[in-house]
């Protein structure tokens, strides 16, 4: 997984690119730390470039949601594509996390 981050007008946006898997746990935790410390009130995971995700990847979004609740910031998942989108729908993540097309 590659990560590109942009902070603009109080919004921390992280573009997650390629594949998100078990081995990306460390990088994702580090990203969450950056998000929390940035002071941003809204954080967005842009998944337009994410081609696939496994179950541990979905679990990472739950960890992010937990961090958001504790840190009083909002979390949005944006532009999931194909395989990733179908897994989010299958798992009903749209009921837990705000997902934008």
């Amino acid at each position: 997984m590659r990560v590109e981050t942009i902070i603009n007008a109080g919004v921390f946006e992280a573009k997650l690119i390629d594949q998100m898997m078990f081995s990306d746990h460390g990088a994702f935790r580090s990203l969450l730390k950056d998000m929390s410390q940035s002071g941003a009130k809204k954080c967005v995971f842009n998944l337009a470039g994410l081609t696939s995700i496994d179950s541990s990847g979905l679990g990472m979004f739950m960890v992010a949601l937990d961090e958001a609740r504790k840190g009083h910031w909002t979390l949005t998942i944006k532009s999931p594509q194909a395989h990733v989108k179908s897994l989010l729908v299958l798992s009903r993540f749209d009921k837990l996390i705000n997902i934008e097309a």
Partner: protein
Amino acid sequence: MRALRQSFAFDARRPFDDRAAGDVKDARILIIDDSVAVRRAIDAYLRTDGFCNLAHARDGAEGLQVVETWHPDLIITDLTMPNLDGFELCRRVRSDTESSNIPILVQTGMNKSESRAEAFSAGATDLITKPISSGELLGRVRVHLEHRKLIERLSEFQRHMSQELDQARAMQESLLPADDAMRRLEARFPIALASYYEASIGLGGDIWDVRAVDANRLMVFSADFSGHGVGAALNTFRLHSFILGGSVPTDDAASWLEGLNRFLCDVLPVGQFATMFCGIIDFSTSTLQYASAAAPWQMVRDGEGDGGFEIIADPGFPLGLSREAAYENHVRRFGPDSVLFLYSDALIETPDMLNPVFSIERLRAFLDAHWDKASPVAIQRALLEELRRGAPAKPSDDLTIVSLHRVRDQP
């Protein structure tokens, strides 16, 4: 190495404690030189520094005998010697698997780079320039002994972990239905069961089971915990123990998932969850009631329909994410010749998610093409052969395949 002595023994309490590598003074060191004066000088340097397990040999031939009988931890040798020179000694030590890892320090007065390269090529670990200085000799001896000790400790730790993982994998496989238990169910109900389970390289989070609900009903489920490794495997034990406790009635698929979900919400840390499919077959009404907690798209074939497999695609919360999650029952016909085909996502994500050997549609086509031509066991074998042809490496996640075929003949 034939035997690990106490100083190099593995300590499971501190497998990576490199401070332990500093304690090398009881290592066995073999000094090979045809000059008595040089052997004595090296011996004296080493003893002054606290090394006490020292042996001498006058040439390469005698040195090889000592290597074979005394198993030194390090060899210091001259190159030019009668009978067998240092180059040949290095080659022979390296060619014997029992001694191939012993560090060899070669004393050399040769300054030509070709000659030094020849010594390394023969198997020397390091060179000590003549005339030997005490400081250089002791420094190199310590470095190579510590290095050897760390490598041995790491190797022993890997062996230890490998044994532990083998044992854990066997324990995890014992959670799955045994062959005799499946044969007993086949004798009691009009079914033919076939299953396959393959743990990933380490441990994984798959678990499945089939059990009688009552005289007319059978429950089958398949679950997959998120992630891999020890954590996911321990979660399968948690779930198995909870199910064995019987605190959730097994006569309704959705209620059963809700009961398991509440339990897993209590015990799983944030970020961990399980996907699960649960089906209850009622032979008296020829129906299959099922509910899904984000399980991959399972397959079912209606024996009285057109004979093709259908994909069951019902969204649902994975277990362990939300205490309020509700699950929905679905009911469909499951008469004679019907088939329920369950699998974990490794089947449709190998070798990777984007280019799997079996996409869901390819899997369905494969089952359609083969089902009427062979037994469920033979079909699973053919499926696995196809998978191996396209992805020879071991799957990176647990692979579970279960097929339950309702046969026509009543027991």
